[in-house]
């Protein structure tokens, strides 16, 4: 059963933007005054990198899942934004919980629900980042979610990944009938592929039928900003401001006939920041629509 207002980013393929979308939409929602919790269930633990704190081993989260300890929540990583950091230790969860489940003990979904239920009222929004290929972790996340958003790039392999999440979705539905597909997010889209984007949108709309929309906002491809963001631990809207400061520093360096040693690669991240702002608006609006539908049907 869904816990609070939980949204999961899931995709059967890696490198399609799950973590980046999780971090950026969470931070934007938090900056607007909503109380947000991010849970990183990915052993890569890149939410930490996106938010600019040191990589985590994931031991504390794993320990919490195996014992009666509460989730290891790092408070106020940004104003209104709390984080449960993931890391390599979470990679063990699948095998540990598979054997526990085989013995008839609580499975990971039960444990996650039990951990989240006491704190659901503390947050307006809970976002979960998932690994691409781990069935047990993904299904546990979907078991507690109100909705799942599927990011995809435009290549065939990424679009195939949407199908794999559909399988996970079906597996979880008997356990969590509230779960809905929020929609598909096109990620890292080049501005020069308008015709391809249109065809991919149509193909996805055909695949999804009436289940969910392909979000109007797509996240543009800006390699330099992606590199800067992770290198500096900045979110894209923060990078937008940093790029302005960087430009000033560059000009001052020119004036002083010195060189800027650690400048940004991105000169202007405002377009990308705007994409995230618009997508966050679409996602939150869609979540409320799903929530209202759930109330009507119950």
């Amino acid at each position: 059963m869904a816990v609070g207002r939980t949204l999961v980013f899931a995709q059967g393929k890696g490198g399609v933007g799950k973590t980046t979308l999780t971090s950026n939409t969470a931070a934007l929602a938090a900056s607007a005054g909503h109380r947000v919790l991010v849970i990183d269930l990915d052993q890569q633990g890149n939410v930490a990198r996106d938010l600019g704190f040191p990589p985590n081993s994931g031991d504390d989260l794993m320990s919490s899942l195996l014992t009666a300890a509460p989730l290891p929540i790092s408070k106020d990583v940004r104003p209104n934004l709390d984080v449960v950091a993931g890391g390599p230790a979470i990679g063990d969860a699948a095998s540990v919980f598979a054997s526990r489940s085989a013995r008839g003990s609580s499975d990971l979904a039960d444990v996650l629900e039990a951990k989240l239920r006491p704190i659901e009222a503390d947050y307006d929004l809970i976002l979960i980042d998932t690994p691409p290929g781990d069935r047990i972790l993904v299904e546990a996340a979907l078991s507690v979610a109100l909705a799942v958003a599927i990011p995809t790039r435009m290549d065939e392999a990424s679009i195939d990944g949407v199908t794999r999440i559909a399988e996970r979705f079906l597996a979880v539905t008997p356990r969590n009938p509230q779960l809905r597909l929020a929609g598909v997010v096109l990620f890292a889209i080049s501005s020069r592929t308008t015709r391809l984007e249109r065809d991919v949108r149509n193909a996805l709309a055909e695949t999804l039928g009436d289940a969910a929309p392909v979000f109007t906002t797509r996240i543009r491809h800006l390699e330099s900003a992606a590199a800067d963001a992770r290198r500096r631990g900045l979110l894209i809207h923060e990078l937008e401001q940093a790029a302005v400061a960087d430009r000033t520093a560059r000009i001052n360096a020119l004036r002083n006939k010195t060189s800027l040693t650690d400048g940004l690669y991105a000169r202007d991240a405002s377009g990308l920041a705007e994409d995230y702002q618009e997508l966050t608006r679409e996602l939150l609006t869609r979540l409320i629509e799903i929530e209202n539908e759930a109330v009507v049907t119950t």
Partner: protein
Amino acid sequence: MTIERPHLADAFKPQPTKKEPVDRSAGLAGLLPPPRRVTPPAAPAVEAPAEAAPAAGEKAPEPKPATAKKPRATAARPQATETDVTSNVAVYLEPDLLELVKTARRTRGLNYDDLTVEAFAAISDDTLRNHFTQTRTAQTSGGMPTRVRRPRGTSGIQIQLRLDGTQRAWLDQKQEEVGAPSRSALVAAALRLQLG
């Protein structure tokens, strides 16, 4: 001999418009009302740990007890009853209808909100009521209505209307009057009947 060079200080001066910080949280405040409290049938029983917790290596950054309550966000949230608060209303349009709406917007210089108001002015309640009645009339010989399935490939694409409280309340009332399943379906039907 010295070469006269143009004065470039102004050219390199940071442009004030570029330095203006953009508030990316604009338009996001108040979108999420406080979550509804859902009382689950019973919290799943998590078995007591049979084994000791694995030794934690690297510590998570300042983990604190999860039950510690945070002060609520201080951002002002619009009250649902306020009629002067404008907020986004999501409407899902089928791809062909979206094209029609976009074309009308482009050719006539109107925005989505204007087109919606115009559609409701032009379409009568009876027409809307008939529209929604027709979509639900399919019945089996046993009398049980069948579920109306949307054709494949016609899933909605989201647009946003900016509506104030009075407009949202009007839509809710109209939705009830004509038997529309949702606000989104109501707006989509009006636009379809007007532009289709």
